[in-house]
């Protein structure tokens, strides 16, 4: 142990010690509960089971932005399948553990797949109906015990030698919660977490980074469902199950727990679950008055602390910290920076981006769009028979007046949309029907006109999202991420590469740890550029990279582009600032009103009469 600790850095050593302390404390309290009175046990165990549900819901609702009201139904499936298969068919309870986790997980995958055709509120509604249907089925069939329910299986006691451990059910529930906490907290500390937030807040960005967002959403919902199955399995040992315990109000209550405790926080769902489930049992006053107070607490907490208990704790903590260390508040430091020019790190263009994929064969065609036709729903054609051929290793400009179809063409090339007709090839392979993530995996990366980043994450974490497709198995490994040596190494590698990428676009390390919500526009744009460069693309498409940048920052971007060119990356730039385009680009394509005007060198284009006409408005 000591040698293991000695090998770690001081920070990670502290983290490890902290984790061990936390684990020991957790097991000690489980021991305490297991040896406590029945009353304490039933109180804590019900709260713990709802904590599992709340944590699993927070993963889909808080982190991934899918407000599920199907968790009571999934919970019911876990509890009923365990009870029925055990009592009617005599299946072993420990065999039923993996079965109910997997079974409910599969139901979750199917439900997620069907529901994700709709998003936002409609996702909530579809999953809500799922809960209603499950409960109606459970109440109407006689083998489920109908409305009155059915007694759950009895969990085997510990063998005599272990009897000092106390109630076996308490350990069963305690360990189930522990597993859930480990999984959820691991995901929260893994590189998957920023990716999930990106799916929630900036889906195009995630897709452009190579994340198959819809697959990911279904997968995360499936994982969350299997945790609800685990909760159901454990719940069946608490005594008695009946349809009323899994009604739609329970679904809503779980969401209430998450929101009341603090959505998208580590401890919030647990606190919310403990409060909501324990309140009616612990507070014994006039029962009607108790209900009134319960309702009032909902309203008051949400109205005054819309981010729930954790929001309250957070603001208190900030206030206390501010009192003791007023200068250390990061936000203030940033606001000071706002008025001064962005602090750039020393530029090291030659190291800007190292790419191993691009081959410097200038005459070869990197990307070719041929005969592209595209129209939005039955309207006029946004692009009519447009050709664009980009040579390898070139910087290729794409210009045209507003509304000429530049952004549309970029979206077609990067895979946000597919053309009505025409072909797009990258490195000789047809890609026009591939979705954005698949194109990203083929080395076609892009940035967006106005940066779409996850505002609550730091610049460094945002850049790390760009590496998603470069580190295999991030999603699969995320549930036990901190426990894997290789994964921790990957985390460090991702952090280092992200910082390096930020440095290579000229952002000093101070910006790396600042939330994107707090950085100025220029830094956000450069962060986005770093996120696209970090995955070592062979073709990089930049959609108005200069939008909103100061002249110093424009020079910065020029420098980065030159570095990319040296590294052999093919770059396509859409930009309004024609001076920049003419200076930087080997070739320039001009569009106007959805049609190709010309393609040629800067000098050719400048001299072209039609270009002057349509573009410069003369």
């Amino acid at each position, binding site marked *: 142990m000591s040698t293991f600790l000695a090998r770690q850095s001081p920070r990670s050593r502290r983290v490890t010690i902290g984790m061990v302390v936390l684990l020991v404390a957790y097991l000690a309290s489980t021991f305490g509960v297991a040896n406590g009175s029945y009353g304490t046990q039933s109180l804590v165990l019900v709260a713990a089971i709802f904590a599992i549900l709340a944590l699993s819901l927070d993963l889909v609702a808080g982190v991934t932005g899918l407000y599920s009201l199907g968790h009571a139904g999934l919970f019911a499936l876990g509890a009923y399948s365990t009870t029925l298969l055990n009592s009617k068919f005599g299946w072993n309870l420990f065999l039923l553990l993996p079965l109910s986790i997997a079974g409910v997980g599969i139901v979750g995958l199917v439900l997620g797949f069907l529901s994700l055709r709709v998003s936002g509120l409609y996702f909530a509604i*579809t999953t809500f109906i799922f809960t209603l249907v499950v409960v109606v089925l459970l109440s*109407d069939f006689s083998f489920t015990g109908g409305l009155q329910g059915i007694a759950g299986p009895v969990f085997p006691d510990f063998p005599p030698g272990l009897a000092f451990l106390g109630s076996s059910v308490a350990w069963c529930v305690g360990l189930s919660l522990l597993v859930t906490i480990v999984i959820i907290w691991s995901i929260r500390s893994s590189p998957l977490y920023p990716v999930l937030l990106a799916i929630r807040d900036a889906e195009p960005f995630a897709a452009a980074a190579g994340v198959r967002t819809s697959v990911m959403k279904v997968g995360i919902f499936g994982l969350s469902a299997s945790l609800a199955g685990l909760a159901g399995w454990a719940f069946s040992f608490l005594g008695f199950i009946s349809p009323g315990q899994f009604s739609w109000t329970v679904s809503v209550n779980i969401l209430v727990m998450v929101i009341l405790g603090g959505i998208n926080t580590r401890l919030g769902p647990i606190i919310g679950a403990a409060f909501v489930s324990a309140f009616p049992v612990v507070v014994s006053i006039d029962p009607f*008055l108790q209900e009134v107070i319960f*309702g009032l607490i909902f309203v008051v907490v949400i109205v005054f602390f*819309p981010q729930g208990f954790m929001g309250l704790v957070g603001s208190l903590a900030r206030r206390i910290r501010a009192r003791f260390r007023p200068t250390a508040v990061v936000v203030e430091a940033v606001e000071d920076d706002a008025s001064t020019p962005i602090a750039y790190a020393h530029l090291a263009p030659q190291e800007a981006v190292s790419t191993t994929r691009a081959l410097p064969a200038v005459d070869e065609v990197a990307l070719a769009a041929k005969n592209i036709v595209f129209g939005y729903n039955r309207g006029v054609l946004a692009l009519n028979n447009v050709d664009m051929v980009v040579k390898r290793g070139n910087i290729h400009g794409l210009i045209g007046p507003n509304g000429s179809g530049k952004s549309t063409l970029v979206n077609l090339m990067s895979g946000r949309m597919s053309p009505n007709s025409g072909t797009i090839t990258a490195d000789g392979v047809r890609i026009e029907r591939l979705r954005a993530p698949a194109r990203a995996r083929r080395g076609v990366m892009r940035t967006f006109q106005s940066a779409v980043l996850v505002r609550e994450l730091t610049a460094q974490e945002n850049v790390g999202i760009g590496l998603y497709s470069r580190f295999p198995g991030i999603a699969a490994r995320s549930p036990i991420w901190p426990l894997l040596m290789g994964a921790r190494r990957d985390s460090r590698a991702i952090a280092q590469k992200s910082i390096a990428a930020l440095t290579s676009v000229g952002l000093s390390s101070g910006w790396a740890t600042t939330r994107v919500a707090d950085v100025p526009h220029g830094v956000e744009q450069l962060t986005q550029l770093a996120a696209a460069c970090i995955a070592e693309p062979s073709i990089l498409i930049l959609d108005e990279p200069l939008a909103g940048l100061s002249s110093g920052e424009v020079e910065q971007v020029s420098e980065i582009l030159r570095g990319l060119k040296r590294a052999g990356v093919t770059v396509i730039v859409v930009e309004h600032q024609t001076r920049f385009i003419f200076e930087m680009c080997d070739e320039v394509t001009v569009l106007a009103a959805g049609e190709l005007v010309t393609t040629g060198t800067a000098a050719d284009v400048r001299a072209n009469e039609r270009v002057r006409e349509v573009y410069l408005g003369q």
Partner: protein
Amino acid sequence: MLQVLLSGLSIGAVYGLVAMAFAVVFYVTRVINFATGQLLMVAIMLTAGLSKAGLPDWLSISVGLTASTAAGVVIYFVAVRPVLRFDRFSFAWLVSTLGVAIVLQSAAAIIYGPTSQGFPKLLNRDNLVIGGASITLQELLAIIVAVVAVVGFEIFRRRTLFGKVGMAISSDPEMASAIGARVTAYAVAAFAIGGLLAGAAGVLIGPITYANPYLGDTYGITGFVALMIGGIERPAAAMGGGLVLGVLSVGANTFIGSQASDWFPFVVVVVVLLLAPHGLFASGDALKRLASGIGRRTATLKGAN
């Protein structure tokens, strides 16, 4: 058959009014008021209480409706506005409106006691026989009120300037305020109309269900399911969903079996959501959209290969 249709429509009208109460609020504010069922309950309890105290029925009913309308407005100011001011896109109103629902329900139980109380019979004694099917005048009134509500609302929405401002707020609240529309006033109005519609549903169903503080849950949920069937985007569609739900429940009861009214409507809801995820009446032609949807999907599948 006609009997099923008439009975179904009459109960569906009540579901539809509750669904419309949800939808009107959602239309303007993008908020689902989870205390809508409790507004129905407020109207029922007050009407019953005042009528028992000796007030004439019409006066009790008007006080009941006024109270549910006012309660709707109070919910907006207490539970919705502060939440939306903090974050326009948060779902926190889910918790706060639910909290109000619990408070209203428990307060009613404290005041009136938890057991059911009598409700004025109104028109429930008088029967009308149409083509072999019988319907009470109260049920007929429910259908009429529903028709008036939906037609009136649509005329108001499409033909009056106020209605058009409402539409504008619904589609782009910020731009609507930039042409001088008082978005807050419209939100208040929406909550008031929601309260009135829910209250009307209460008065119409009261003679059958009697007055009970826990009625809000029962009708809140059926109204919500009706909303799902019809589609949440347009109040008129919500009413359509209510009528469909009513006819389906009564039809299932008559033709399949008494308990089929529990599950059959949900089967329909599932089918509806699979075919038209945004509800049956969400936009004119669900089937056409379905066909084009399938076409699109096969196209993308082909593309993926």
